[in-house]
C-alpha cells in the first residue's frame, strides 16, 4: 500500500504517548541515584518539620517532661498572635530584615559598579571589602560589642578623645538605638555578598551594547539605567531574596551582642523563638512560632525559586 508523503510525515511526527508510570520507569536509574539523598532529607528535614508541627499543638510547662505534654489545639497560635511582645518582636524583625536587606544590597551594588572598572589596586580593595563576609560571625559579634561598649568602647573613646562628645555614646544599652546599631553590623557583614553576586552579574552585560549606547550619546547614568540595570534584574532579584531570607533567619549577631535586650528591643523572631524554647522550655509555643516562621520563609523561598527559574529561562538556548 502506498501512502502520500503528507500522511507518512504525519505518522512519523505523531508523538508516542506514555503514562507517568512509564516515564518514571524509564528514568528509574535516575531515581536510584538520588534516593540516598532523598532518604537523608526525609530524616533530617521532613521528620523534624512534621515533629515541630505536631509539637505546636501542645503545651509544655517547665514542670513537665516533653513526653507529658498537654494537647491544646490552636491555643499556642492564638497566644502568639495576641501577644504584645510578639508584635513588638515582629516589628523589630521587619525593620531588621528590610533595612539590612535594602542597605546591604545598595551598598553591594555601588561597590560592584565601582570595582567593575579596571584600576590599580582593584584586586586588593575587592579582597579587603570581602573580609567582613568571610570572618566568623561569632568573632565579629564580640569585636563589635567592644567597639560599641557604652563605657569603654572604641567609638566612644575616639569621640571623647577628639572632644566631639563628653561621654561615650550609648549604642546597645538603650532601647531606641540598639536595633539600628545591630543593623549596621549586619549590613557590614552582608554587603560583600551582594557585591560578589552583582559583580558576577555585571560580567554578563554585553560590552558592545554599552559602547553603542555611548556612541549614541548616552551619558553614564543613561547607560546604567537603560542597559546595565535591566541586565542585572534577574541577579538583583535573586540577591535580594537570598539576603531577605538570611536576614529574617539571622541569629548570631543579635543573640551574642545583646541577647535580644534590653527589654526585648533587639529581639527578632529567631532569637525570641530560641529564648522561649530553650531558655523558658516552652517547646510547644516555640514550635508554633517556628511553624509561622517556616511559612513566611517558604513564601520567600517560593519567590526565590520563581526568580531563579525566570533567570534560567532568559538564559535559555
Amino acid at each position, binding site marked *: 500500500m502506498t501512502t502520500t508523503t503528507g500522511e507518512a510525515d504525519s505518522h512519523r511526527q505523531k508523538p508516542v504517548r506514555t503514562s507517568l508510570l512509564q516515564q518514571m520507569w524509564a528514568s528509574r536509574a535516575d531515581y536510584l541515584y538520588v534516593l540516598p539523598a532523598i532518604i537523608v532529607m526525609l530524616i533530617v528535614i521532613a521528620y523534624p518539620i512534621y515533629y515541630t508541627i505536631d509539637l505546636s499543638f501542645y503545651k509544655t510547662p517547665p514542670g513537665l517532661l516533653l513526653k507529658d505534654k498537654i494537647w491544646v489545639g490552636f491555643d499556642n497560635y492564638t497566644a502568639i498572635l495576641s501577644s504584645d511582645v510578639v508584635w513588638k518582636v515582629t516589628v523589630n524583625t521587619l525593620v531588621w530584615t528590610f533595612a539590612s536587606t535594602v542597605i546591604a544590597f545598595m551598598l553591594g551594588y555601588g561597590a560592584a559598579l565601582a570595582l567593575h572598572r579596571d584600576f590599580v589596586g582593584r584586586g586588593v580593595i575587592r579582597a579587603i571589602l570581602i573580609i567582613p563576609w568571610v570572618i566568623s560571625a561569632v568573632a565579629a559579634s564580640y569585636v563589635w560589642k567592644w567597639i560599641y561598649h557604652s563605657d569603654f568602647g572604641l567609638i566612644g573613646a575616639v569621640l571623647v578623645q577628639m572632644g566631639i562628645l563628653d561621654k561615650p555614646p550609648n549604642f546597645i544599652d538603650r532601647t531606641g538605638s540598639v536595633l539600628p546599631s545591630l543593623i549596621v553590623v549586619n549590613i557590614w557583614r552582608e554587603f560583600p555578598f551582594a557585591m560578589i553576586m552583582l559583580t558576577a552579574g555585571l560580567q554578563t552585560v554585553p560590552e558592545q551594547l554599552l559602547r553603542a549606547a555611548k556612541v549614541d550619546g548616552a551619558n553614564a547614568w543613561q547607560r546604567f539605567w537603560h542597559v546595565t540595570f535591566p541586565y542585572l534584574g534577574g541577579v538583583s532579584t535573586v540577591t535580594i531574596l537570598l539576603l531577605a531570607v538570611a536576614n529574617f533567619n539571622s541569629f548570631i549577631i543579635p543573640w551574642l551582642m545583646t541577647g535580644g535586650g534590653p527589654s526585648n528591643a533587639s529581639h527578632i523572631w529567631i532569637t525570641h523563638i530560641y529564648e522561649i524554647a530553650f531558655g523558658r*522550655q516552652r517547646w510547644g509555643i516555640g514550635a508554633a512560632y517556628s511553624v509561622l516562621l517556616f511559612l513566611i520563609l517558604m513564601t520567600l523561598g517560593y519567590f526565590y525559586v520563581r526568580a531563579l527559574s525566570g533567570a534560567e529561562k532568559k538564559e535559555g538556548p
Partner: protein
Amino acid sequence: MLMLKLGGALMRGAVVSTMLTSLVAAPAIAAPPVDLSKWSPEYVRSIAGTETFDTAAECGKVTPLDYKGKLTFWYQGAFEGDPDLLRQYYKDFFVAFRKTYPNIDLQDQALTYNDLLDKFRTALAGNAGPMVVRLQILGGVEFASKGVLQELGPSDVGWTNDDFWPGAMKSVTWQGKTYGVPTNNETMAFIWNADIFKRAGLPDHAPETWDDVVAYSKQIHDKLGIAGYGLVARVNAGNTPYRFMPQLWGYGGGVFDEADASPKLDTIRLNSPESKRALQASYDMYVRDKSVPVSALTNQQADNQPLFLSGQLAMMISHPSDYSVMLDLQKKATGDDAVKAQTTIDNMRYSLIPTGPDGRRAVVFGGSNIHILKPEYVEGGVVDEPAAKAMVCFWTSPEWSLKMAYAGSNPGNLLGFKTEWMKTRLDNIKFLDVTTSMLPYGVPFPALPETPEIMNHIIPDMLQNALTGAMTVDQAAEDAAKKVEALEKGGDGL
C-alpha cells in the same frame, strides 16, 4: 576578723534556723561533723587541718577501685571569670580520678554556667543526657520534679546528710526525697576599693546598708567621674539574680517568702512595697544618679572585673576568687596599667553584704549539686551505677569538695573544712573568712521547677524594664509579679 551577729543570723538565715530545727526534732544521734551554731571565722580556723581523709579508701568502699566500667559526665567547668588556680584544680581532679579508677572509661564535658542548663535540657528532649551531671544549685529541683533524676543522697556514696549544709540539702530535695549531693556551696561578699573611697571622701569602711550603697555610688561618680557600684542586669545570665536578690531580700522583699525562716512559697511578693523599694534603689543608681556602668544591661561579672582592676569601678558583689582573678589579670598588664592594677589590688577590701533599712542581711546560698540520671534519659539507655557513684563520691569527698571550691566557693561536704587544705586555703586565699562568714545569711533560691525561669528571665526582665524606662518601677514590679503568677498557673512564657 569579723564577728558574726549571731542573733541576726538566726533570725534571717534560713540555713541556720532550719539546721537548728532539725537538730531539736531529731533523735539523739552522733553530733554533726561541724557545729554550725558556732560558725565564725575563728571557729573555721580552729577546725581546719584537724582531720585527714583518704579519698581513695573512702570511695573504694562505695565502688571498688578496680571496677571496670564506663561513665559520661557533664559539669559546669571553669568560667571566663574564674582564676587560673581553679582551672588547674579541675585538671588535677580528673587526673586523680582516672588514677584512682583506671578501669573506668570516663568521658567528661565541661560547659559554662549559662550554657549548661540549655544544653542539658536540649539533650533530655532527645533522651541523650549524660549519666552524671553537676548542675548549678538552681537546676536540681527542676529536673527532680520532672522525674529525670534518680533518688540519690549522701548515704548512697559513703557520707551522711549531716555532712552537708541543711540549706544545700534543701536544694536537692523534692517532695521529701533527695535527688543529689551538694558539691560546693558559696556565698558572696561585698568588694570595695579603699583608695577610691578615700579619694571620694568616703569613710574607710564598706557601706552598711543598701541605701548607703546608692549614696556612696553617687558620691564616687560625682567626685571622681567613675562608676560606683558594679550593677549587672543581663538577661539569661546567672550573675544577675545572684547580685540582685541579696538587695531584694535585704529590703524585705522577695519573689515569694523564700527569705523567711519557714518559707511556704505560696505568696508572690515581687510587687510588695519592699520589693519595689529594692528595685527603686537600682533605678536610682542607673537612671537618676547614673553612677553605675551604662553597660550594666549587657554586663556580666566578668565585665566588671577589668573595670574594677583598672580603678574605674569602686564596688561590686563577688566571690573570694575575684581576688585571685585580679592577681591573674595584673600579671598580664603592662606599664601604667600594671601600676593601676597593683594599686587596686593593694586597696581591695571584702566586707559583709550590706543590710536593708531594717538591718536584714541576706545573700544567695549558691553552689552546685551532682546528680545521677535515670537510664531512660541517658544516651544509650544505660547508667553504670557503680561508676556513677564513684564519681559522686570522689567529687563530694572532703578533699575534692574543698579543692574544687578552693578559690571561689566552699566545700559542700562540711568535713572539707577540717582538711589540711582548708588550713592552707585560709592562709592563702585572702578574704575567704569574709565570704565564709556570709554562709549563715545564705538564702536558697525557691525550690521550685520554675525557679530557673524566674531567676534567669523574669527578674532580669524586671530590672531591664525599669532601668530602660520601658516601664516605671511600679509597673516593672507588677509586670514581674504577673509573670510569676502566670508561670505558676502554667503560662505560655511569652
